[in-house]
């Protein structure tokens, strides 16, 4: 079970605006999904450690050097995707008042 207030709070944390109708709908749907998920409570996990990484890898690192980066053309393509751009900068709305 999840309450409408919890759905509202989660949506805010996830930075997604929901209409009132959507809040109702999601509350119902997520409650039913969480009810299904609750069956995990029946599983005895007292003697097992959680999976950290499924192939057992740990601390995979690369050399501490600047990788051969993409050419200027690719850099430009990446920057071109920004909604508002000025040269090598991406313009954003103000963060501080």
């Amino acid at each position, binding site marked *: 079970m*999840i309450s409408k207030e*919890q*759905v509202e709070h*989660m*949506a805010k*944390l*996830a*930075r*997604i*605006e*929901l209409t009132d109708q*959507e809040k109702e709908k*999601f509350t119902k*749907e*997520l409650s*039913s*999904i*969480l009810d*299904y*998920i*609750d*069956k*995990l*409570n*029946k*599983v005895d*996990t007292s003697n*097992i*450690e*959680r*999976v950290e*990484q*499924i*192939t057992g*890898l740990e601390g*995979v690192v*690369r050399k501490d050097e600047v990788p051969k980066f*993409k050419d200027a053309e*690719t850099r430009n*393509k*990446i920057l*071109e*995707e*920004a*909604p*508002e751009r000025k040269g090598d900068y*991406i*313009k*954003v*709305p*103000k*963060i501080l008042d």
Partner: protein
Amino acid sequence: MKLENLTIESANRGLIKKEFSCIELTRAYLDKIKKENKELNDFLSITEKLALEQAENVDNKISKREKIGILEGIPIAIKDNILVKDYIVTAGSKILEKYKAPYDAFVVERLKEVGVIIVGKTNLDEFAMGSSTENSAFGVVKNPYDKTRVAGGSSGGSAVAVAANHCLGALGSDTGGSIRQPAAFCGVVGFKPSYGMVSRNGLIAMASSLDQIGPIAKTVNDVKLIFDVIRGKDDLDSTTIKAPKFQVQNSKQVQGAKSQFPNSKIGIPKEYFAEGLDSGVKEEIQKVIKNFENIGFEFVEINLPNPEYALAAYYIIMPAEVSANLARYDGIKYGYSTIKISKLKTQNLMDNYLKTRAEGFGSEARRRIILGTYVLSMGYKDAYYNKAQKVRALIKKDFEKVFSPSANGVDFIIAPTTPAPAFKMGEKTDPLSMYLSDIYTVTANLAGLPAISIPCCKGKGLPVGFQIIGSQFKDDLVLEAAYTYEQINLE
């Protein structure tokens, strides 16, 4: 040149013998796509310019009497969550509707190196979330066997592209069954490699500990040919491993087949054949089992934990990872955005985040992000996410027990792919009922195992597929088992 009769191998032979040129072959496929895509909706974009350029290169090589590789000149389609440089990649979402890929995914680089012809980007459920393609922002993909039914998902476009002879092979991605389920619904072969076998560099991430790219094609051999090109360690994906190739003699004789397998034992998980499985599907899989029995394999009933627990664990872990991976779509650096610097006086950052994501994401994506946020949130993380990761460890352990060579374990497992054949469009309106179609496929993703879906009972109504699941990194053994089944049924 009848496209319905071609496989990768036969098309390659045709090119070498000059029965047709690569341009002719490519145009034939492009024409068929253009003719049928309006109805089937399997392609989101047709990369015609690229395909014709690639085809010309291959024809030049052939005219200069240069030797061509087995995949050279072969039309392949790419799921639209895998980046092909300079072409739009949408992930089936409005939030990336106009986004152009600045680079090639590792797997695409590999395919280009061996000379394949990339014909287009295929339709999918938004961000690979779904089991039908009904969640695509660009319309559903129709099943060519019955156009009132779904193609399956999320790689529905790729599966249909192969089934409808729009290409000779396609790449899909599989997080909880998204290659295998549409392959089963569309009567084609779909393979999900072991986690770590294929680089995810250039794959738009959904759930990073579960996603894998894999091939879809008409035959097991065609699937293997594509897999052999895309597999391998990639420095840009630190989860890829250098797995040794399991050497099989690949004997084309069915009778000698069982000697390829260390124990000649196949596991049948009784929990996967219980209530919830369509009786018609169950019957077809019993016939598959008989096929293997007739050539000397021994069957062992095995215990795998109730698949419902796996599904529950999956629907905690996957949304959790989704909520993290989709946080990047904020309208700042790329994609759909409500930001208008000219309107700075009336807009602030928070409003832009809230609106961009509300307008850019479809309901399933938003549903899973919110669910994922919840199961990771303070006060709930332990009960949900940590619990699910422990259950995941149990699932992995159960498979290890079953496959254990020291305990005279099985070589591979046979199971259904889906509870029933393709369902009707609009039939599963309740999200939970849609999730239940993943019940037999999620375990292989949770445990990181190789799994393939192969069609059985062709020619009788809706396609049915069955799964072969193998132990971690024994991908070649799984492919060999699948190949053996195909050979049995050729005779």
